[in-house]
């Protein structure tokens, strides 16, 4: 970083009234869009593109960026309150977030999510400002072998994340992996399990699976409650996290920010992996991991912090290299092009005002979102006061219509109903939905990266170890798998003589 002048000038740009206004508009729209499951920031930005024609490039991007990370805040709300994850990055929040809501701690969950998101986002922006050029190069070093290692790590974390019956969790995960193969094979063009349907040619989208298995599945399951009294609304105890809650989550938030920032830079899959990795890390570090999945506050703080940090750092490849990391970035790329600004490696040098204007607007945007969250959390939590019997059809319809908005496809509505049934059956027969959905997301990343790696290595798997990054990751993976096994074996050996002692004693 040569001098601080461009960065400070950037603040000047942000504090112009027009830019502040559009920042506010952006984050509000983003938050609302995030609350609506199905419609994602990508589609919203596409709809709003014409609006950007008549305004300055900086202003336009400030607004669009606001929509993007605002949607992350909004997505948490339906995950926690209605068990409907609208985006892949909100899935992990559902586990503990919804559990907390059922215990009457929805306000705490939403509150800690807002705080964590704010901190994660802000840390990420600071890191971006300082490290952007350095880490951009790092992103390019991640090739197929590295993604394979990451995906493997992710799948391992999926196993960590689940509670209860191991066999059933693995079954769910494997079914998720199988579902991910539906569609046209990237490498050969062969149609896999599409049964001739063109709507399945591109594979099953994440949203019908997640909303069906989590949202509809849960609603159908609750229909089986016999007594009407069982649908009484949960008590809403407290609205904002206590000091104790904050202290408990501090570590999770800190670690989540770093993890989220690093993983978000990687094009493709960064945000989901970051929330999963943060959650898995917290659960493993915790002295009381059995709390996770039943309302552990770190289980909400970690993924929420991570996914906001990741969504901020996913701007890095776009702004420093000119490569969009995900669908939303692609549209922002398009919006920039329409404005006559071509994102590329020279953007920072050629248009410093634009770069710093956008980056600095994120500070303001995050602050605005935190401020807005304060009254909104109280408002949204009141939704839980509504009787279950009324909330149910509303949720069902939001799901059915929301899933349509993803691809403007009625077929997706049929899909979400099928997965709703699957979700109900899974819940009834003791299978957790989490592993299925997460394995579904990671499965295609794993397979395509693995096959690409084998193409690059000409079929020689030792190639994984010859590359520094993938080699390191695989070693970490091996350690993570083998360490608990080794510990278990040692304990068993040490424990056996003790047990004999005990038996002799009784």
């Amino acid at each position, binding site marked *: 970083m040569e001098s601080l002048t461009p960065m400070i000038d950037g603040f000047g740009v942000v504090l112009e009234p027009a830019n502040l206004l559009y920042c506010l508009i952006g984050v509000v729209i983003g938050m609302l869009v995030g609350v609506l499951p199905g*419609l994602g920031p990508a589609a919203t930005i596409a709809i709003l593109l014409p609006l950007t024609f008549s305004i300055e490039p900086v202003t336009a991007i400030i607004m669009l960026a606001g929509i993007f990370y605002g949607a992350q805040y909004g997505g948490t709300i339906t995950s926690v309150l209605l068990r409907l994850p609208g985006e892949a990055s909100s899935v992990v929040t559902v586990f503990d977030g919804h559990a907390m809501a*059922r215990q009457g701690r929805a306000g705490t969950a939403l509150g800690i999510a807002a705080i964590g998101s704010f901190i994660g986002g802000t840390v990420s922006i600071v890191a971006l400002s300082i490290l952007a050029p350095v880490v951009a190069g790092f992103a390019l070093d991640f090739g197929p072998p590295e993604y394979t290692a990451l995906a493997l790590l992710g799948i391992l974390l999926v196993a960590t994340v689940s509670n209860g019956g191991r066999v059933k969790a693995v079954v769910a995960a494997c079914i998720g992996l199988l579902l991910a193969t539906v569609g046209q094979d990237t490498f050969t063009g062969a149609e896999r399990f599409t049964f001739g349907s063109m709507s399945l040619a591109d594979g099953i989208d994440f949203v019908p699976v997640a909303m069906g298995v989590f949202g509809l599945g849960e609603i*159908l399951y609750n229909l089986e*409650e016999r007594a009407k009294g*069982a649908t009484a609304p949960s008590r809403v105890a407290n609205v904002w996290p206590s000091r104790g809650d904050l202290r408990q989550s501090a570590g999770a938030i800190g670690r989540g920010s770093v993890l989220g920032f690093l993983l978000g830079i990687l094009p493709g899959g960064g945000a989901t992996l970051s929330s999963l990795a943060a959650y898995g890390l917290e659960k493993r570090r915790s002295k009381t991991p059995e709390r996770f999945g039943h309302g552990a506050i770190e289980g909400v703080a970690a993924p929420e912090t991570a996914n906001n940090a990741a969504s901020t750092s996913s701007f890095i490849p776009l702004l420093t290299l000119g490569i969009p990391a995900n669908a939303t970035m692609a549209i922002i790329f398009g919006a920039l092009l329409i404005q006559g600004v071509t994102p590329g490696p020279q953007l920072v040098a050629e248009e410093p005002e634009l770069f710093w204007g956008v980056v600095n607007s994120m500070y303001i945007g995050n602050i605005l979102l935190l401020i807005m969250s304060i009254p909104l959390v109280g408002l949204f939590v009141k939704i839980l006061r509504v009787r279950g019997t009324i909330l*149910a059809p509303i949720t*069902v319809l939001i799901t059915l219509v929301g899933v349509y908005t993803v691809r403007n496809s009625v077929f997706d509505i049929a899909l979400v109903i099928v997965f*709703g049934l699957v979700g109900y059956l899974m819940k009834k027969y003791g299978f957790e939905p989490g592993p299925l959905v997460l394995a579904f997301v990671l499965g295609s990343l794993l397979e395509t990266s693995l096959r690409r790696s084998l193409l690059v290595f000409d*079929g020689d798997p030792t190639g994984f170890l010859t590359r520094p990054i993938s080699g390191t990751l695989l070693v970490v993976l091996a350690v993570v798998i083998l360490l608990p096994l080794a510990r278990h074996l040692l304990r068993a050996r040490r424990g056996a003589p003790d047990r004999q002692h005990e038996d002799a004693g009784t």
Partner: protein
Amino acid sequence: MTTPSAEGPGPEPAPPDAGPDTATATSTDAGAGAGADPDGGEAAEEHRPAPAGTTANLVVALVITAVGVAGAAGSWSLGLGSAAAPSAGTWPFLTSIAITCLGVALGALARRTDDAEALSPATWRIAAGVATMVGFVALISVIGFEIPSLLLALVWLRFLGRESWRLSIATSFGIVAAFYAIFVGALAIPIPHLL
């Protein structure tokens, strides 16, 4: 692997078959016996059906094994390639084999599994709920989303939720109006609509 029942308040002898056996579907015991409820909290107050019997668990295991076998068959026809040069069918085949093996394992554990629930008379409500959704998706392209949404909401509120007619009708119209305003009005989503 420790049997899950060790975590609950004392194991219940699983009933020999898991039909809609209303006699055994006593509330509170069933609620606690349905072991691993992932949502914690209010489990004891919910009135859940009894744990599923061995037959039901076997059926579940069978279904899973069938899925695995079907997947394996489908992958086979796509070509299996080799470990070094995987083809379109390699990965799905491996996954399907894993599913098949796990399905068999579940079958072996069928007697000891108690984190599943039996079907109960309330299951017809699920069928009704799903039927409304199927009706929705069938009708939406023909007559737009307004009427199917209205009917779905009405059924859920009045028949499944046992709310009063007045509340059901008013709420249903309210929902459709709100959806229209948001999705068609504000967001201009090209969902098939009548108005």
